[in-house]
């Protein structure tokens, strides 16, 4: 440990530097989650007699971008961000993502929800890595109040923070990627890009039936609640939940057969009807090119700085 810079700090600093920020973060995340959940159910009823594409979604640059270009660009760009190693470019990437968010004018609530969803995993990195990374020459560690076994490595923290920044930068792009066109259009775009058509149809079908089964599960859960069932830690609860799961599977497998019957009865023969897609314009390609250039620039920047 001779080559490591050690900074001694009193024990209460551990609290100030680690426990307090994370505690605060946890509280904020919980509160936000609760608030969002309360607000997330949509308000008002838009006019459903027109396609959503023209109706509710908006007219930003991203919305008008050809869906194939959009998918390819954002995915490739996301991988580029993954390849970033330094903190500064990662922060720049977050800035760029925010810019895209502003241009795309997507629902900030949903963006926030996506960020909150990854919060747990990222927090684990932020909490664990500073204390577990092996120490290298020239690393700075902070030792709190003489607790020598607990060493907070600045390098580890930096690494974890970079990961967090990259994760946030990519997550921020998910809404512009997915919410600026109706799901079927996005999936058609995927199928034009060589993903088997069936994959897209399966996504749509699953999405449809997730909603059906969720309602089913909720009704069943209510049925159990009315008969006095409350979740507790114990075998009885697990037994009841297993019955619940089993019943859910039985019902869903039976429904699967019926859905399939209904599809066959309406002429399904292993293929879904073809959909048409708008032609792409040169401007779409220019946009893709520009964006990817920015990505490459970021990577170059990342590798240049030491």
């Amino acid at each position, binding site marked *: 440990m001779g080559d490591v810079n050690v900074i001694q700090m009193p024990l209460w600093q551990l609290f100030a530097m680690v426990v307090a920020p994370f505690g605060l973060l946890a509280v904020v995340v919980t509160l936000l989650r609760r608030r969002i959940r309360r607000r997330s159910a949509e308000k008002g009823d838009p006019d459903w007699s027109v396609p959503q594409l023209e109706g509710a979604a908006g007219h930003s640059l991203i919305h008008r971008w050809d869906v194939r270009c959009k998918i390819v660009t954002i995915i490739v760009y996301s991988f580029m961000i993954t390849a970033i190693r330094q903190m500064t470019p990662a922060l720049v990437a977050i800035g760029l993502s925010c810019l895209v968010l502003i241009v795309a004018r997507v629902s900030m609530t949903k963006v926030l929800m996506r960020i909150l969803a990854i919060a747990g995993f990222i927090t684990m990195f932020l909490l664990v890595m500073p204390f577990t990374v092996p120490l290298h020459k020239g690393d700075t560690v902070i030792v709190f109040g003489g607790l020598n076994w607990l060493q907070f490595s600045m390098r580890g923290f930096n690494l974890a923070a970079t990961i967090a920044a990259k994760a946030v930068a990519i997550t921020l792009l998910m809404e512009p990627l997915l919410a600026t066109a109706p799901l079927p259009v996005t999936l058609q775009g995927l199928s034009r890009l060589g993903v088997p058509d069936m994959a897209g149809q399966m996504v749509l079908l699953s999405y449809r039936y997730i909603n059906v089964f969720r309602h089913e599960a909720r009704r069943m859960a209510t049925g159990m609640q009315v008969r006095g069932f409350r979740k507790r830690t114990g075998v009885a609860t*697990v037994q009841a939940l297993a019955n619940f799961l089993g019943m859910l599977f039985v019902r869903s497998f039976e429904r699967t057969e019926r859905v399939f019957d209904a599809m066959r009865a309406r002429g399904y023969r292993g293929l879904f009807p073809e959909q048409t897609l708008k032609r792409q314009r040169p401007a779409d390609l220019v946009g893709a090119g520009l964006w990817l250039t920015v990505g490459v620039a970021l990577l170059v920047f990342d590798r240049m700085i030491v």
Partner: protein
Amino acid sequence: MHISDGVLPISVAVGGYVAGAGLAAWSARRASNEDLPKVAVVTSAFFVASLIHVPLGPTSAHLLMPGLAGALLGPVAFLSIGLGLLLQSLLFQFGGLTALGANALMMGVPAVACGWFFQKYKGRTQLRQTIIGGLAGASGTALAAVILAILLATGGEDFFGVAKIALLAHVPVIIIEGIVSAFTIGFLARVKPSLLMHSFRRPQIPAHG
């Protein structure tokens, strides 16, 4: 637990995609093309099931169920899990886009392995099916945790600590998964044993017309 974006080295993320896509294609070919919509509907059932929380002392754990999926679906489970993860990252915020391939490997490979294990050893009696089902459920999650740890460790020695902690964090989940799977399989063995045969199999002649 799902790996989020930005964690894995780019080579692993891309490699995960390639391997995941290959396995998904293999898995899709295990079912007849006509049956794929059924796989989609079943996937949504597993999706909903995975939202269920089991109380565990002061906190709760939600079920991952790779083992159970494998036991009920067989090789198609890989496709189903991949689809579920895709949906999750598309619509429900969890899981990263770039880590999708790796996540699919982490959950899908144990599912297929446990499905094979369950079919091979399930025997005929309800008790035996219950026990084997429990083993399959527990080992499915255990295997998933191991793969998660390996994937994390590809980031270099800096990540070993995180990998170890992630592995440890799965221990209680493994136990719960085992018990829940055992009870669920036991329930199905009594109520609807036909579900414990793989529903989707390639040589299946479309039942009627």
